[in-house]
């Protein structure tokens, strides 16, 4: 994939996603917007507005029925399964609402997994994973299994896993939805800090006004379509 000069990090072009079935439902309808490198952007909208579907399409976890997603100017939506996996491994990090850590791996082993898939040696990946855990304040819990961590700690581990391989973009689907307000706020602070200090680009979804208030840019969805956009000063 060649990189056109000054291309946005992500460009969503007229994306539509229709789920097949008896009654075809258009989860996303003709959405276009872009995300520049270094942004801290939220996808806002009520439940069922298409936020998760759009994040899945941007994250190449799902293919758009129509339209295209470009990453650094290159189309990625139609790549083959292996190419998509390689692309996600290289360029993306994911944080899920339900943490989704591998339950049989310790915190540090979960964090180093993207590096395992990249083929990094043990010493290198362990060093990088511990550094990522230190960044999220959990280096002391490195050897704990997920079920020995609180929800907030598990989500921090998930954030560490999402950034350990230094991806260009971290996609977070309702990252604070399963956390209490205090823990959720702490997680958002952490994400902001990573964005500000390490330059990690975040695109996250939420319907919580408190969470959305932390985003510097909010892209609003309603019934699968773009419903507006707000930008705040940093």
């Amino acid at each position, binding site marked *: 994939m060649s990189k056109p000069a000054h291309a946005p990090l992500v460009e969503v072009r007229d994306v539509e996603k229709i789920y097949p079935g008896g009654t075809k439902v258009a989860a996303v309808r003709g959405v276009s917007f872009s995300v520049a490198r270094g942004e801290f952007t939220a996808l806002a909208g009520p439940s069922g507005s298409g936020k998760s579907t759009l994040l899945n399409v941007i994250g190449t*976890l799902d293919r758009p029925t129509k339209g295209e997603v470009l990453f650094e100017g290159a189309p990625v939506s139609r790549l083959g399964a292996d190419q998509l996996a390689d692309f996600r491994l290289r360029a993306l990090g994911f944080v899920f609402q339900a943490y989704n850590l591998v339950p049989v791996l310790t915190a540090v082993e979960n964090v180093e997994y993207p590096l395992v898939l990249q083929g990094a040696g043990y010493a290198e990946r362990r060093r990088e994973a511990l550094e990522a855990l230190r960044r999220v304040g959990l280096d002391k819990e490195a050897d704990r299994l997920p079920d020995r961590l609180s929800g907030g700690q598990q989500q921090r581990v998930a954030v560490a896993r999402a950034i350990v391989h230094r991806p260009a973009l971290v996609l977070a689907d309702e990252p604070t939805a399963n956390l209490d307000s205090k823990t959720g706020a702490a997680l958002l602070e952490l994400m902001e800090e990573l964005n500000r200090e390490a330059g990690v680009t975040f695109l996250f979804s939420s319907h919580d006004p408190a969470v959305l208030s932390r985003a510097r840019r909010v892209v609003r969805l309603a019934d699968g379509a773009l419903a507006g956009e707000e930008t705040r000063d940093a």
Partner: protein
Amino acid sequence: MLRLAWRNVWRNRRRSLINAASMAFGLAAIMFGQSLMRSLQSQLVEKSTGSITGQIQIQDPRVEQMKMPDRFIKDPAPIAAAVARDPRVLAGAGRITLTSLISTPQTSVGVLVVAVDPAVQERITDMSRYVSSGRYLSGGKDLYLGDKLARRLDLRLGEKAVIMAQAADGSLGADVFRLVGTFHTASESFDNSIAYVPLPAFQALLGRPGQINNYVLKLKDLDQVDAVRDSLESALKGRPVRVLTWKDIDHEILGVEQFQDAILDVVLVVVFAIVALGILNTQLMSLFERVREFGVLMSIGARPRWILRLILTESALLGAVGVAAGTAVGAALIWHFGRAGLPLPVGQAFSYFLPFPSVIYLRPSWGAHAFACAAVFAIALLSALPPALRAARLKPAEALRHV
């Protein structure tokens, strides 16, 4: 991947233990069955060859009934020389086996006379071990009979009987032999119809001094029969003899072996099917439980092939545990019953035809066991393939939505 696979195997400890145990007991049962059949067959062959057939026989090529050679070898010296040169041979001797008539003042009975060199024959067959009264042959005109035959003839130790057989010139040869001992093998046909006499006396009776009708060998290793047969055939090339192994002569035992092998094969297929279904079930349950997790792994960059390899590796590890445990249990069973013996009523089933004990001493059959281990391991892998392929074909977004 190995670490993740290993921990995945044990994440549902009880299920994996049950699965590994079913593989282990399946394999142990297979090994036990293989060993039992092979041991039974080996004992059968050893008893048959050790009682009368011998492991290799050299006969005139025109003999029609290999068990009752009706043609004589006039000069066995070249055979003896060729046999003596082969270091794989434990012992070899010429003998005559011939249907004859044995008479006492009370009655006459048709018997199979086996005329042997008593000293050498002891190393080839086991008949000297079955003495039930008196002693084994030593020479002269000794007569050694089955105890039932002695009773039929109403013949007691020290008493005389006349053996009659067709001599070389067509006349009826006859001579008097003295009963020096009786044997009891528990085999109806042996104890009731076989008479042992020293070879020189019987050769004289037949008017065939120095002649034999079969030359019998015992080898140091029974598995060498085919190789020794080939060597002797080439050493005796051009001479009017043929070399036969017990397999050529004892068709019945070969038939029994083939029948047992066929039964064992059916049992193996059933056990393999049970093992395969167990693993398939485990892997499918594990797959359904972990669909979301596969979605996570795919989202962080795992290729479909990687997911496939992960599941196959888990199965391989579970298979290795099952095979290791099964090998240990199977080997322990074989070792135990190899020492203590396994009492089975098979002796009665075979004893009409030949002496056979009712205790089977198990011995390992490593080639067959290795095949069973490899087959169980391969089945563990193959039965994981359908769920592994299914997992590899999951779409990440759908997998992540899976509850």
